[in-house]
């Protein structure tokens, strides 16, 4: 997304405009009002006497609210403006916009104030891929509102636009004839409502309730959003590093902004994946983000588990790559999904979300002690565990692998590195399908052990627990034999369809440490590679090592550094006792965060830190992105060495010396609230010199 755009959002509804508040979208550009994966406004242009306005300043008041100070004029020649225009906008069912014009003259002024409107009702996929529409556009005037309509057979979407002041309405906008006395102001409140069949409230009703109650509505909304409560409930961080403090605050606020209420589970929030392309429920992203946020906002995990459980697969459906017990990959509500031109209703093509579901359920219980949720979701967790053995072992070789059944619009790579070229041999060749990527085996191993713990502790099923533990031990033994690249001293990224090791060196090794599947005897070698010069850039671990056939420092999954990936790698290093190495990764990623004003992007370039001095942003990265937002949170956990142990929280800090002192106060969990302290003693610069000389 280009610079200078103003974005405000609330869950899956968001508005992206220019810095003067105007929206003039082309098909391929992600500006407009979006809700439920559909663009409901592609044109929203304010003119006074036929002229557009210039921005003096723009304030993001809250993540759901922005204010634009504008003046008439061309902006080329400076003339003392005798009018000020203020637009204040907040998101809710669409958005509200309070329009205020102040007359600074000593005589009255008469103005034609016009809001030009239009909508292309594009499906977000159409914006992303520049596709053409198949339905018909029309408009009507109803209830003093302009209603823009799009219809394709029975499919409908509507945008309602109204105001609390009399306006002349035509098919392209609303015009107000305004006279303002000297030194006085005129104000109108405009309301835009998105109409969609899956929304509980009809747009006409939402419109009637919304117009003419701007201040009250805004205040009520601010309360509903409850940002203050959200921040107050999170642990308090005090530390020497201003940058870390800012990053922490930014992460909490962005996480609040990305909270999303799935229509099937109203009044409960789970994290949506990222702005602008992924403002919806994703199995993998919601689970990883909930894991990262557990010590800070454990409720996200509970909602994620409930919502994903409610949509767990129940049948075989090739188009949606659905199986019984499988956790969904992605849900969408747009036109292409409605007409089954895309399979996202929901789409199940992911091989990791299902084992990770069990991992999250167990980790959630270890932190919160909420055994009720574990009992409520016993059926879902058992179905997820059964999926691993009954449906995910496509080759009958005891490993989880994937091959899409929807060959037209399904996903080829059903692991987190889901782009087409992400999994390759050392020489750059792409393996065939099914592919059994290594981290999937780690997640399956962890899911079995954690499932066993829950079976023993909560479900009281010793037989299941014994069986799962036996299977996990067997999986670990086979894995360490079959995936180990002997002459490299690391794990292959996958086994191909013939069982051959796909021998490139990748960041996936870090996820293996996190899962615990790595033999102790092999862990040192893996950790050395992760911090070695081929994988570690100085900012973080690259997705694919320098020196591999497909390595490209700005290739999406073949050389860039992903903050989320690194946060789990750091967790993995801690799990095997590599505290200093984990601190080194935390130092690099948190230093990078400073260059992005505390908001880590999805990915940044894998150039060596010594070469660029600053992290190079990946060109089309999403921001904010939920699991990048969660990365600093998980890094705080790994630096402080926070680990639940029965009813206590163990604190075992290993902080980079550049971070200094940290106090994390009021960490919620089964222990009530406890504090954790740490002081930086790990000299990461020295450690970096040491490890890059190996590698």
């Amino acid at each position, binding site marked *: 997304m280009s610079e200078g755009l103003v974005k405000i959002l609330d869950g899956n509804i968001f508005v992206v405009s220019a810095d003067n508040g105007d929206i003039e979208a082309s098909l391929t550009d992600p500006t407009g009002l979006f809700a439920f994966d559909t663009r409901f406004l592609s044109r929203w242009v304010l003119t006074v006497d036929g002229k557009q306005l210039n921005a003096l300043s723009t304030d993001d008041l809250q993540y759901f609210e922005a204010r634009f100070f504008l003046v008439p004029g061309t902006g080329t020649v400076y003339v003392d403006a005798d009018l000020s225009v203020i637009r204040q906008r907040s998101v809710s069912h669409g958005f509200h916009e309070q329009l205020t014009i102040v007359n600074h003259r000593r005589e009255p002024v008469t103005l034609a104030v016009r809001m030009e409107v239009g909508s292309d009702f594009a499906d977000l996929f159409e914006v992303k891929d520049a596709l053409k529409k198949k339905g018909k556009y029309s408009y009507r005037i109803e209830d003093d509102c302009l209603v823009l309509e799009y219809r394709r057979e029975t499919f409908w979407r509507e945008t309602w636009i109204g105001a609390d002041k009399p306006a002349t309405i035509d098919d392209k906008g609303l015009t107000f004839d305004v006279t303002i006395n000297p030194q006085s102001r005129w104000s109108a409140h405009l309301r835009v409502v998105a109409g969609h069949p899956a929304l509980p409230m009809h747009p006409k009703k939402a419109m009637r309730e919304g117009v003419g109650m701007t201040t009250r509505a805004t205040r009520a909304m601010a309360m509903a959003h409850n940002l203050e409560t959200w921040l107050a409930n999170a642990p308090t961080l005090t530390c020497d590093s201003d940058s870390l403090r800012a990053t922490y605050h930014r992460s909490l606020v962005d996480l609040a902004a990305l909270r999303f209420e799935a229509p*099937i589970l109203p009044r409960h929030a789970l994290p949506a994946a990222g702005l602008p392309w992924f403002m919806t429920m994703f199995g993998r992203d919601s689970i990883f983000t909930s894991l990262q946020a557990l010590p800070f906002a454990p409720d996200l995990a509970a909602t994620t588990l409930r919502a994903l459980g409610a949509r767990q697969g129940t049948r*075989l*459906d090739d*188009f949606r790559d659905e199986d019984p017990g499988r956790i969904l990959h992605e849900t969408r509500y747009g036109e292409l999904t*409605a007409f089954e031109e895309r399979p996202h*209703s929901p789409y199940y093509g992911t091989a990791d979300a299902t084992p990770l579901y069990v991992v999250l359920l167990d980790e959630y219980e270890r932190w919160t002690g909420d055994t009720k949720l574990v009992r409520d979701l016993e*059926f879902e967790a058992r179905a997820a565990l059964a999926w691993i053995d009954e449906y995910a072992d496509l080759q009958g070789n005891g490993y989880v692998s994937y091959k899409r*059944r929807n060959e037209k619009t399904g996903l080829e790579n059903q692991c987190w590195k889901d782009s087409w070229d992400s999994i390759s041999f050392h020489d750059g060749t792409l393996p065939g399908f099914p592919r059994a990527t290594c981290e999937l085996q780690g997640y399956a191993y962890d899911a079995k052990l954690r499932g066993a713990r829950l079976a023993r502790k909560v479900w009281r099923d010793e037989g299941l627990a014994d069986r799962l533990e036996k299977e996990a031990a067997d999986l670990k033994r086979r894995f360490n034999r079959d995936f180990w690249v002997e002459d490299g001293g690391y794990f292959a990224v996958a086994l191909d369809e013939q069982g051959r090791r796909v021998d490139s060196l990748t960041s996936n090794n870090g996820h293996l440490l996190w899962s615990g599947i790595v033999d102790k005897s092999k862990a040192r070698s893996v950790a050395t590679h992760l911090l070695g010069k081929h994988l570690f850039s100085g900012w973080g671990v690259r997705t694919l090592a320098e020196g591999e056939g497909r390595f490209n420092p700005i290739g999406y999954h073949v050389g860039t550094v992903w903050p989320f990936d690194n946060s789990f790698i750091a967790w993995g290093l801690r799990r095997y006792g590599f505290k200093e190495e984990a601190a080194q990764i935390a130092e690099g990623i948190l230093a990078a965060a400073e260059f992005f004003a505390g908001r880590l992007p999805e990915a940044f370039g894998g150039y060596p830190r010594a070469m660029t001095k600053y992290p190079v942003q990946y060109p089309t990265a999403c921001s904010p992105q939920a699991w990048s937002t969660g990365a600093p949170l998980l890094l705080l956990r790994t630096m402080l060495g926070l680990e639940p142990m029965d009813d206590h929280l163990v604190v075992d800090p290993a902080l980079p010396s550049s971070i200094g002192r940290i106090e994390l106060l009021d960490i919620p969990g089964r222990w009530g609230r406890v504090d954790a302290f740490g002081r930086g003693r790990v000299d990461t610069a020295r450690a970096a010199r040491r490890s890059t000389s190996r590698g």
Partner: protein
Amino acid sequence: MTDPQPDAVSRFLDDLATRGHDPLLHGATGTMRLELIDGGDTQRWTITVDKGDLRVSQRNTRPDAVMTMQRSLFEGMVKGRVNATAALLRGVLVVEGDLGLVTAFARLLPGPPRSVTTFLQRQKELADR
């Protein structure tokens, strides 16, 4: 004369009425009204779920959710040819009230027949190997 062979919709609802408990709905509690439009006629069923315990009747109780559609569309659903979520997004299935309850109900619908064949073929291939 014998009755004509019951159609797929009747068979599905009869089966539901005698099922008693379905674990797929263990998390759902509430009352749904199913309204099927068939020509000029609308047929109504009340489906009550209590943590997976199912009851089907034609009593007119106040529902938490109402699903309305053409009977032919519902027939497609019970045969696995029509996906309920996509139908909702297209506007051919209209839901009022608790969408969570309707989503839970939709878990009882089968997948497309072709998918099962694909799966069985795959299992057979694995067995043959």
